[in-house]
């Protein structure tokens, strides 16, 4: 069902003929979405057209046309994942690539104002020039700053010192599904970008909920995010060390190390204590396979894995980074760390102490550019399961449940043997919260493997429900009745609230509800 010519022309009048396309070749390339497809790479539903707006005014005009003619629209920034596409027929995609400016970096008040397509790496390199840094989510610095802050989760292991995207969000300029423009926080009072809430009741919770708006509540056209102090050089020089680029010079007063613990309980205890002690710049529990894939690929990785060394040394381990503002502070943090390790039986792992690993890990924790390497290069298909942003104990329980379930599917040979416990996780927000998700890798072009991964996801969701482990973070509507159908009743009917919000803010149901919530059950 192609977009009626008259409507196409209306959109064309807004953005110009170069910035809208319903050419099949273009649409097919947008339909390519391996992350989130049940099997293979192609989305089942194609957008009718892709539109490239350049400004808030153009977004407003597009939204108004959609409301008038009953066209569903869905915005995307970098578009990584099936959830970026509209899930209903007859919809249009708004690719926000042209809205990519860093509008302001306020050094004194330590925030940046960005448009939707600014990626973390762009913001980081500009911020570092001014002695600042930004929070980068675990998925990588190739993701959009604004998207994480407003629409999709937003955890990253640097969260120990740099918070969490949802919390770092300050003023927002928001084009509602109706085309009205709403300004949140201090921006709403024309007082600038510096605060995400108030004066008066804050709509930030309504907008974002816990996990974000998932493209269902309109288009966020600008937002401000907190920046943090960066004690490193204004520019980082790299050198080529196959297969990666790594820091040419180590950063002063920074130390990366992998620590291993005798049990997962001790590991969790150490993490909590680190948070409470308010030390550390970055902490992440990484699976043995994740670490191994940073060091090697192909046959080298398989050989290393088969020695069992990684699994043994990293069974209960995490990567921890100290980055201090002075030598004195550096010494202090080391001492506190040593104390915590002594309390919890933690040992520094020899793996991280080679020069190669030091360079590699230091680069990876600052640049956060390694996810494709560790998650997609191995089998091609990648997905994530479980998920919590809650207490450390909940995270640990999820890991236990997840490991059992993953082992089962690994034994069946349908997902990759990554040791089972492949959780990217740990405390953030200075220990106030803990994050976890269980990663899995499978061959999305192999029917048995894709089917197996799907069954695992279904079972893992059920396990979360049965064992009261909370709601999965990414399993939105991809599996079974969808997240809301399955978990709503068990979780204080949160979905009813989402639907009410959806109905209120999107009376014509114009913005794609697929990843968020539809107004009716």
């Amino acid at each position, binding site marked *: 069902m192609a977009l009626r010519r008259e409507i196409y022309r209306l959109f064309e009048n807004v953005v110009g003929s*170069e*910035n809208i*396309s319903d*050419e*099949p*070749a*273009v649409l*097919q*390339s*947008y339909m*390519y*979405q*391996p*992350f989130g497809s049940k099997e293979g*790479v*192609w989305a089942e539903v194609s957008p009718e057209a892709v539109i*490239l707006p350049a400004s808030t005014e153009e977004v407003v005009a597009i939204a108004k046309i959609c409301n008038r003619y009953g066209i569903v629209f869905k915005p995307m920034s970098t*578009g*990584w994942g099936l959830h970026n596409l509209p899930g209903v027929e007859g919809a249009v995609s708004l*690719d926000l*690539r042209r809205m990519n400016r*860093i509008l302001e970096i306020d050094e004194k008040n330590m925030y940046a104002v960005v448009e939707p397509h*600014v*990626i973390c*790496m*762009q913001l980081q*390199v*500009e911020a570092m020039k001014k002695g600042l840094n930004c929070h980068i989510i675990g998925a*990588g*610095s*190739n993701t959009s700053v604004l998207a994480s802050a407003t629409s999709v989760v937003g955890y990253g292991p640097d969260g120990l010192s740099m918070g969490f995207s949802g919390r770092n969000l300050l003023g927002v300029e928001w084009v509602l599904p109706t085309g009205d423009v709403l300004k949140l926080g201090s921006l709403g009072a024309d007082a600038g970008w510096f605060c995400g809430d108030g004066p008066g009741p804050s709509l930030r919770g309504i907008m974002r909920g816990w996990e974000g708006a998932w493209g269902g509540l309109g288009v966020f056209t600008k937002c401000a995010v907190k920046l943090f102090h960066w004690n490193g050089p204004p*520019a*980082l020089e790299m050198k080529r060390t*196959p*297969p*990666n*680029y790594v820091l040419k010079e180590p950063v002063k007063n920074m130390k990366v190390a992998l620590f291993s613990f005798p049990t997962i309980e001790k590991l969790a205890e150490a993490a909590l204590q680190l948070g409470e002690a308010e030390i550390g710049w970055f902490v992440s529990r990484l699976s043995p396979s994740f670490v191994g894939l940073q060091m090697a690929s*192909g*046959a080298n990785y*398989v050989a290393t894995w088969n020695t069992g060394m990684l699994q043994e040394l990293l069974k209960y381990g995490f990567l921890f980074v100290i980055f201090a503002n002075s030598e004195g502070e550096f010494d202090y943090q080391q001492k506190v760390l040593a104390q915590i390790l002594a309390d919890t039986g933690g040992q520094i792992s020899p793996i991280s102490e080679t020069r190669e690993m030091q360079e590699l890990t230091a680069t990876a924790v600052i640049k956060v*550019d*390694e*996810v*494709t*390497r560790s998650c*997609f*290069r*191995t*089998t*091609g298909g*990648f997905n994530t399961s479980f998920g919590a942003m809650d207490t450390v104990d909940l995270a640990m329980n999820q890991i236990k449940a997840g490991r059992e379930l993953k082992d089962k599917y*690994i034994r069946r*040979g*349908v*997902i*990759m*043997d990554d040791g089972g416990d492949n959780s990217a996780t740990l405390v953030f927000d200075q220990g106030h919260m803990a994050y976890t998700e269980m990663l899995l890798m499978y*061959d999305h*072009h192999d029917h048995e*493997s894709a089917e197996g991964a799907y069954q695992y996801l279904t079972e893992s969701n059920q396990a979360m429900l049965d064992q009261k482990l909370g709601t999965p973070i990414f399993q939105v509507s991809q599996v079974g009745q969808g997240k809301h159908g399955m978990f709503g009743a068990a979780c204080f009917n949160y979905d009813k609230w989402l639907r009410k919000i959806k109905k209120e803010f999107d009376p014509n149901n114009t913005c794609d509800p697929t990843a968020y919530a539809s107004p009716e059950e």
Partner: protein
Amino acid sequence: MILEIKDYLDDMRRCARCSLCKWPPLAQMKSWRFSNNCPSIARYNFHTYSGGGRMALGLALAEGRLDTITDEMLNIVYRCTACGACDSSCKYNAELELLWPIYSTRAHLAGMGYYLPEHSLIIDSLRKEDNTLMKPKADRGKWAEGLDVKDLSKGEKAEVVYHAGCLYCYDPELSAVARDTVLLLKQAGVDVGIRGSQETCCGSTAFQLGFQGEFTKFAESNIDDWNAAGVAKVVTSCACGFGIMKSVYPLLGKEMKFEVLHITQYLDDLLKQNKLKLSRSFPARVTYHDPCNLGRKSETYVPWKGEGKKVLGQFILREPEKVVHRGWNGIYEPPRDIIRSVPGIQLVEMERIMEYSWCCGAGSGVKQTMNDLALWIASERIEEAKSTGSEAIVTACPWCEQNLKEAVKAAGGNLMVYDIVELVRRAL
């Protein structure tokens, strides 16, 4: 060695959609202003124009998801200089081939008779006049008139054959540089000859546009001619020629009884052996533009032929191990060493250099068929050069030079564009 799209389906199907192809290798990004690496998507913005988007397009074609080849689809396919920046960026993370799937998609289309009408001008010119510039074959040797140099096409013998390349032969401004190059080589005592009007195109443009058959003819004939001439070295000024001779000629399965060198490598050697001395000062602040074909695209490409075995459940282990071409082994240091040995010169680097250099915009037929796009891409590079405070940009490829110069002129700017040989001449 004909490119087949089916050889690249596996790469096309394993793109992770991570968009790393749209940026320089993330760790090497230095500013927002120069954070693009793909000129195609930087200009047109739809995902389709990126490396990953082109993989999806190729896959859709191969899987029959696109049954009509429209003019717009062809525009999309060819609005790309095949610069390989996407390939280089993907390699350091996902290790997929991107550039060769792009080539194979073009070959797939061209084989069926789908190409831009403007390409027929280039191809017809090749078939009739042995060059891509629609100039007469008989005039190809004119640049060397009056030059006291051996003519190998007349049976003379030399150790080194200097292959000027189509653009150096026919462009009046650039042919002066070709003459200077020969004079330099002779001054350094090199036993050099040329093939005059018998020199033919290297076939690079034909290859990149997907006209595999045409390319094969030119490549095979060049190899035969150089083998028959008995030269030990083929030294070329054309970066496109060098790139294709190094990366693709060896795949034809013909013995190449000679070494292929770019003029910058050769001059660098001569300088280091003191056969040429740069003694005149040239005080200038300059920056160097890495031509794609001299850099990341000049690595000898080894197509992977093997099996993907499943181990550890679903881990795909390639046997034999795949050689990953990151573009790190391009010719980067020799031109820089040459520049640095010019007395008084100050060399500063742009942000996007070496294997993540920003394309000049001329490649793969774009200059001849889409001049607007070529000039836009060049203007981005010129901004980058200016941002270093340089008064000149030095490069080692005639296509880069011509395009950058034209872009400077169009903008009314005053950035100087030098061929590296020009620099050497000034400093002798």
